């Protein structure tokens, strides 16, 4: 029965890749994201090569211009700007990726169950979905960003760690952003449910979990992939807004958003400190959007492009 399911999905792959590669925007986006990801991954190595610690403060070397040992100069505490940007990239990309994937996972699970089981459960889940959509997003994020993690039963070790602000934002984004994917998946499942290969699977006695995971999920993957790619960019933007409000990533950890926020007060003296993280956010978000757009067209060439 699995053969049947994959038979539905399989022939699309080569064509999909070919169509993707034919789009210059998609290639450029993959290149940009790849480079940024590589830079973030290799941050410790670059630090080793340059011989600096990205968190090491040097008050005698504040706001220096580019030099051999500091290719992009130093920030207001004399730290190497390049290393900080790479380090910030780790956080920003991680938050964007994990947040988007987390949201997509919750959404997929809800969508699958709602679409396949249907009935009361479907109605309930969709009303919850409506509720989350109706919630004013930003105030909710603000409230959640200030909530005491220990009151919610999170172990003290995690709640008190220096990276707590990162986990918190990832959790926030995942909890708030799943509704779009849930609706997409549910709609997909509703139309697939009546298809022959599913009916056949039911007839042979496949359990509901098996049907959901082996037959329905693979066939709803493309809209999930598109939505996730698009939301990586918006998560990075949301993180920058939270940092702007003082509710984002806390020092010594830094994200591009928090670096940009910190740089605004010195924007006339040290404009580059604001320009670099701003550009990186911009490039990443544009790349995610373009890639998501291209993915959608490549995965689903028959259907016309939709705005979302």
């Amino acid at each position, binding site marked *: 029965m699995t053969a049947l399911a994959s038979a539905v999905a399989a022939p699309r792959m080569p064509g999909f890749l070919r169509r993707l590669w034919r789009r210059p925007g998609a290639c450029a986006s993959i290149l940009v994201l790849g480079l940024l990801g590589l830079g973030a991954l290799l941050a410790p190595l670059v630090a080793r090569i340059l011989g600096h610690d990205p968190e090491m403060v040097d008050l005698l070397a504040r706001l220096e211009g580019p030099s051999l040992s500091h290719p992009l100069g130093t920030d207001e505490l004399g730290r190497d700007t390049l290393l900080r940007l790479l380090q910030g990239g780790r956080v920003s990309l991680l938050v964007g990726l994990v947040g988007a994937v987390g949201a997509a996972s919750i959404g997929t699970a809800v969508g699958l169950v709602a679409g396949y089981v249907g009935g009361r459960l479907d109605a309930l889940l969709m009303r919850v979905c409506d509720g989350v959509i109706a919630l004013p997003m930003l*105030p909710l994020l603000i409230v959640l960003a200030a909530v005491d993690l220990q009151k919610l039963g999170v172990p003290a070790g995690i709640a008190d760690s220096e990276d707590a602000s990162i986990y918190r934002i990832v959790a926030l984004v995942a909890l708030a952003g799943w509704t779009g994917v849930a609706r997409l998946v549910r709609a997909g499942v509703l139309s697939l449910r009546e298809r022959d290969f599913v009916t056949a699977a039911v007839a042979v006695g496949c359990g509901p979990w098996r049907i959901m995971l082996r037959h329905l999920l693979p066939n709803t993957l493309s809209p999930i992939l598109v939505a996730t790619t698009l939301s990586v960019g918006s998560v990075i933007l949301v993180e920058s807004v939270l940092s702007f409000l003082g509710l984002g990533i806390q020092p010594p950890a830094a994200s591009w958003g928090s670096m940009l926020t910190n740089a605004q007060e010195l924007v006339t003296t040290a404009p580059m400190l604001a320009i670099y993280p701003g550009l990186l956010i911009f490039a990443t978000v544009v790349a995610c959007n373009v890639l998501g757009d291209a993915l959608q067209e490549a995965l689903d060439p028959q259907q016309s492009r939709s705005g979302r």
Partner: protein
Amino acid sequence: MSHFLVRRLLQATMLVALMSFVCYALIGLMPGDPIDLMLSADPRLTPDDIARLKAIHGLDQPILERYLAWLGKALTGEFGYSRLYSQPAAAVLGPRLANTALLMGVSLTAAALIALPIAVTAAAHAGTGFDRAVNALCFAGISVPTFWLALVLILVFAVELGWLPAAGLPMARDPGLAERARHLVLPVLTLTIAAVGGHVRYIRAAMVEALGQDYIRTAHAKGLHPRRVLWRHALRNALLPYVTILALDCGALVSGALVTETMFGYPGMGKLIFDAVMGNDYNLALLALLLVTALTVACNLLADVAYAALDPRIRQR
């Protein structure tokens, strides 16, 4: 149909009621209290003062009790006093609501008016260089952090060129319409730049879909002028999904734009909600949040009902 309507209406009401408790509980989950914060602003305050003030504002009561008390009053139309502003919550909300409706309304209209011709032209020439350029620009607009955009606009137009004021509201006593408009330019510009890309993409997608329909081919075959086909036939059909999306986003009309309001010192709903939530001003925060929620739910409902009216199959599902 009426059964469907009643059911959805009931659901929506329950949703709003539930939301009010969720909001209340969320604010309550935030640790700490701003009254304690007053300690750091005024060294003359004693801990006894703090305890007394908390009691006065009912902040020493358990949260469920406070919520029920609030609910009882809210049902009679009394939303209580804002703790931060010492005024009835509704009275604080009124002017902010007007400000936000003005700012968001103008921005939304501007974004829609700019987006329409661009999107329609792009859709008519789908796949050409123009279309690609429009697409790239849209992505650029969507991808800029708003506070950064606002700061750049202020630095360029207010500081360097000196053409426009950096603040969103004039300070003269009777500023007159022209002055108010001049002050609105930069915040509106910020919001429009951030939003127009999304609008173009919605309309363009809807237009491309509409242009692929049979009746367009029929219209062309009938020998109608291509421009007439594009702007009359196709656009009319593309507008319906676009307007639906607009309706779904109408919560933003009252929830405001926190970042833009902060950057331009514009007293709107976004800032108000933020301050009320941060300041444990339950009455004010709840009223504002409920307003936003209720409007969003109402718009969703309206869209659903409109669709149901157009497509009877939905009712049966």
